[in-house]
């Protein structure tokens, strides 16, 4: 957790310094956005690797019936909280006139 804040603070500090040194801020912004895109692609691939590995482990430990129950439970537990959260957020922020 501390590492996250440290990285964030370092990034902000570096940016403040770069703003003073570098005149072409747009170029800096473009470079950072490009680095961000590349990092996202690598990150998504790694998250996929971990998820695939996890599924393989679960399959190795238990039988087909267990997997069926797990798939149903997981599918519902991913979909329902995400959908209801989004609906409430839209109702509160948009219909409540905050956006």
């Amino acid at each position, binding site marked *: 957790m501390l590492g996250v804040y440290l990285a964030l603070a370092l990034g902000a500090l570096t940016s403040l310094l770069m703003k003073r040194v570098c005149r072409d801020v747009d170029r800096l912004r473009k470079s950072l956005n490009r680095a961000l895109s590349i990092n996202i692609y690598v990150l*998504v691939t790694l998250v996929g690797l971990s998820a*695939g590995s996890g599924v393989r482990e679960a399959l190795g430990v238990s039988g087909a019936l267990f997997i069926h129950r797990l798939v149903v439970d997981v599918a519902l537990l991913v979909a329902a909280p995400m959908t209801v*959260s989004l609906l409430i*957020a839209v109702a509160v*922020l948009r219909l409540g006139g905050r956006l």
Partner: protein
Amino acid sequence: MKHVAVITTLFIIGAFLGFLNESMSGASIALNALLYSLIFIIGALVVLEVRSIEVIAFSLKLALMLAASTVIGSALGGIIVGALIEGSLKPYLAVALGMGWYTFTGPFLSITNNYWGLLGFTSNVLREAATFIIYPLLAKKFSIEAISIGGATTMDTTLPVIARYGGEKAALTALVHGFILTLLIPILIPLIMELL
């Protein structure tokens, strides 16, 4: 749309490769290292974009309301699932209130029951993965509201996607939103497990 297609394809390729390999300990180390570099870039981008105190104050206010929506929405989602599936309501509510923080929810629920632990881990990993794919699709119309689907992950792993597709205002709101949820989850889950 091109980015979403690339992200989805890369996730599927990654999952397939992960399924073929038994141990992926290297991936988690690389994931951590990459995460810090991403947070570093986000910090730099936020400073480049945020020019006034008003923007920060506005993001804080939004993040508080959004965090409340995420907690209530996730809890209601867990209650709905618990009602649909025969069995105890408690584990489903606890898993849903994990709000994407699988490294806490999975191990914590494993102490009580192995299956609940597996459910807590898998559901929350997939919530994070789904955010990578769903947020870019919703970002054009609901850049702020859609932050709620990411739960606690919006302060770290999914923050880059939010910054890329929602802009810097959404990134700042997401960071505070994720931070509030990260503080709440270790209180809420043990409370649910103890009280219900």
